């Protein structure tokens, strides 16, 4: 099972902060495509270019594979500091 987390604007736009899904074996890009099928809003916000993805708290590229138990997080460009 994987925990999938959403933060900031993305969390508000998807109206979802956390999902539990088994997505091991998918690439990060494939996961975004799969989640985007939920509805038009998810499609609009998850497939935009301004989504960063971290696996196990480290930023990764779209072709990065998700392993069993990995924590996946999706969020907009960061604005701290």
């Amino acid at each position, binding site marked *: 099972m994987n925990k999938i*987390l959403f*933060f*900031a*604007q993305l969390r508000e736009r998807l109206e979802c902060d956390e999902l539990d899904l088994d997505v091991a074996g998918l690439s990060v890009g494939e996961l975004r495509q799969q989640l985007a099928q939920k509805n038009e809003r998810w499609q609009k916000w998850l497939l935009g270019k*301004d989504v960063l993805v*971290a696996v196990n*708290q*480290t*930023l990764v590229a779209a072709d990065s594979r998700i392993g069993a138990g990995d*924590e996946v*997080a999706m*969020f*907009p*460009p*960061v*604005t*701290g*500091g």
Partner: protein
Amino acid sequence: MIRVQQADFDMNQEYQALISDDCSSGAVVMFVGRVRDVNQGHQIDELYLEHYPEMTNKYLSQLEQQARALWPLENVSIIHRVGPLQLEDKIVLVGVSSVHREAAFEAAQYLMDLLKTNAPFWKKEVIEGGHNRWVEANHKDTIAAAQWA
């Protein structure tokens, strides 16, 4: 020393922390980022800082190690506040002590530039009329971070 906290921090205490256990660092640089009254053309009343707790600590610790690999540093402090913040409040401290002032200045800039583009914090502003507005990432910050790559 990495801290993510809601509370304010004290400049004397943080200065002391930067020079502790160490008589040899001649140079101390402290950078403080604050809540501005105007940002991206909007008048700000209040700010809310959201973060991804498991990742902020992990990333900032990695960032400290990266800086230590690039410069001879004594103590490093990164403090980032989260939760509700008011106008003029401190948001972030990056502090560095080193034998050499060049190293202290450069490492502090490096830490801020990378924190700005990679640490998972997000600012939401309360602007005129009580509306909420997520701050947009600044292209200038991406360029500043890229110069270190």
